């Protein structure tokens, strides 16, 4: 699904990613754990094409196509979705309007017909109820005055509506209470199937009580220093990250 080779990136001449190698096959869930400042969120942003960061070397390929130089929206249209850590508010633009614009852009790119309003509403309402959100959520301005939980649920709503091939979850578990965390995890599990992939970025293990990853990577100072299975998560939980620093 995605193949990252020796990826290096910096912001304002400060190197953050120092040679990332990562491959996520179709149908797998991978987790990247690491301390604050290790470069995890930078990786999520660079994958999505955020131009605040400078790519200094290496490559990112999706389904065999090099996307390293591709624009943000084209990556999205290829099926890349980023669940934002801090989703930004856009006052006056309703959730429904925004979602339809995103869906239409995707359908147009895929050469499909636009989803009609009736089907759109029916699909959205079903997901909303699963997320424990009221239908009126669609009328609210995106992320404007949303609580922390609502912001993350809004991201999951978009994930389920747009149904991408690769979902990158950037600290989606931060700032959530247990109930919201469960709801979000349920949404991710519902999204997941054999034909798509998930990359979870976190520095807690609590989300992993609900979502079972296939591979766990540990990131320290811009590099993936160790990869393994769930036992790695428990080791980090018990002993911290220090033992992994060479």
């Amino acid at each position, binding site marked *: 699904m995605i193949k990252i080779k020796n990826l290096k990136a910096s912001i304002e001449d400060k190197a953050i990613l120092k040679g990332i190698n990562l491959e996520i096959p179709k149908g797998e869930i991978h987790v990247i754990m690491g301390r604050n400042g290790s470069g995890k969120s930078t990786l999520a942003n660079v994958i999505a094409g955020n131009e605040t960061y400078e790519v200094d070397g290496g490559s990112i390929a999706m389904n065999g196509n090099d996307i390293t130089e591709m624009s943000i929206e084209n990556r999205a249209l290829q099926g890349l979705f980023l669940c934002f850590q801090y989703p930004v508010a*856009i006052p006056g*633009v309703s959730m429904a309007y925004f979602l339809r614009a995103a869906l239409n852009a995707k359908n147009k790119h895929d050469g499909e017909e636009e989803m009609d309003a009736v089907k759109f509403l029916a699909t959205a309402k079903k997901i909303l109820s699963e997320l424990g959100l009221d239908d009126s959520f669609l009328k609210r301005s995106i992320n404007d005055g949303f609580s922390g939980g609502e912001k993350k649920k809004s991201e999951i709503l978009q994930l389920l509506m747009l149904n991408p091939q690769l979902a990158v979850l950037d600290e989606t578990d931060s700032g959530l209470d247990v109930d919201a965390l469960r709801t979000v995890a349920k949404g991710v599990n519902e999204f997941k199937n054999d034909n798509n992939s998930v990359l979870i970025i976190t520095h807690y293990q609590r989300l992993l009580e609900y979502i079972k990853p296939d591979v766990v990577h540990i990131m320290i100072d811009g590099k993936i220093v160790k990869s393994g299975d769930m036992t790695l998560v428990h080791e980090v939980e018990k002993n911290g990250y220090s033992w992994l620093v060479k």
Partner: protein
Amino acid sequence: MIDKNQQIIDSTLDQEYKYGFTTDIETTTFEPGLDEGVITKLSKLKKEPQWLLDWRLKAYESWKKMEEPTWAQVDYTPVDYQALSYYSAPKYKQNDSLDDVDPDIIETYNKLGISLNEQKRLEGVAVDAVFDSVSVATTFKKELAKHGVIFCSFSEAVIDHPELVKKYLGSVIPSTDNYFAALNSAVFSDGSFVYIPKNVRCPMELSTYFRINAANTGQFERTLIIADEGSHVSYLEGCTAPMRDENQLHAACVELVAHKDATIKYSTIQNWYAGDKEGKGGIYNFVTKRGICTGDRAKISWTQVETGSAVTWKYPSVIMQGDHSVGEFYSVAVTKNKQQADTGTKMIHIGKNTKSTIISKGISAGEGQNTYRGGVKILKNADNARNFSQCDSILIGNKCGAHTFPYIDVKNPTAKMEHEATTSSIGEDQLFYCNQRGINLDDAVSMIVNGFCKEVFAELPMEFAVEAKQLIEVTLENSVG
């Protein structure tokens, strides 16, 4: 990222103004210059009664003693008032029938998307077309007359309804009110006149389309709308002009009178030529607009979408004299390239339980400068007056500016005032968010800006809300920052 955005902004600045063409027609045009003789000649040409000529001359006398105002946050080359021509009109036979209007003029309006042919018009919208100094056609007059509604050019009103004109002309904006109003009072050449009789709800939207065509000519139109007791009218004006290297002056006056229980809704879509990207040429839009709610429960609502003009100086205001009367001002002002806008409103509360609302949205792109200037005055006897003001600015790029000058003067302790103001830029983070969902830059900018203007667009009549939205989209295309 910044450099790339700057390039995109710069490319926007090259965007062509769609309405910048000129129409080649025969005209009657006065020699440049202004004195009593010119005013008398204008008045005679229009077959005006003596009282109106006297009114003009009095205004001219006071104008000569006045100084051009300099308090606005705008910078422009001074106007040489003696170098302007004060009258330019197409030569054609004045008649009621559209068949007699010069086909070139009809074609001009067609090109602007305004059909003067009643059958082809948007249903339910009557149009008065003002070309340079004169009204060339007014549609649906007969239909409106069935309801007792008078909708005609100002010149016709002077001849056909002198008692109404004499009673109301200058009753809201005295001829000595300010420099540009005084000039307009002396030399105004035409405009629209509306009278809605008691308890009549005007059956269609009324609109005036102003077109400046001639060079070196000032356009000085005057609009007077009277809504008698219990009546209701919605009126819209649109404006365009050719692209020229010289600045052209447009100094209009609009007076609104809403009697007891009457409502006037006045909307403007102003798209005068704004000058080129170096700031050369463009219209000086120096306009005085004011309405009075004379009776109880009267309501006046101004909505404006200002995208054109090199310099805008405009403060549509409401005097709330009647108890429970209401004043509203909804504004979207866009400045790009080197455009400057100093615009806002004055809300004057005289009656008890009067209520005013101000929603102002300023959008600055390129090197545009956008100023909101608003005054709210609560007089001594205006018990329980309420005002809500919200002034938001959005900046696109890093070379533009937004300024807010709210003036508040409260003389009654029961008044309730609320003021909110925000300034923000279209953030890289907002654009990144939209792009990440597959929405391209242009669509993202238009989505964000339309969201920002939502409350104002909601006030426009339906057909024009769509037009306003498109106008903003075209204006800001590729202007990411």
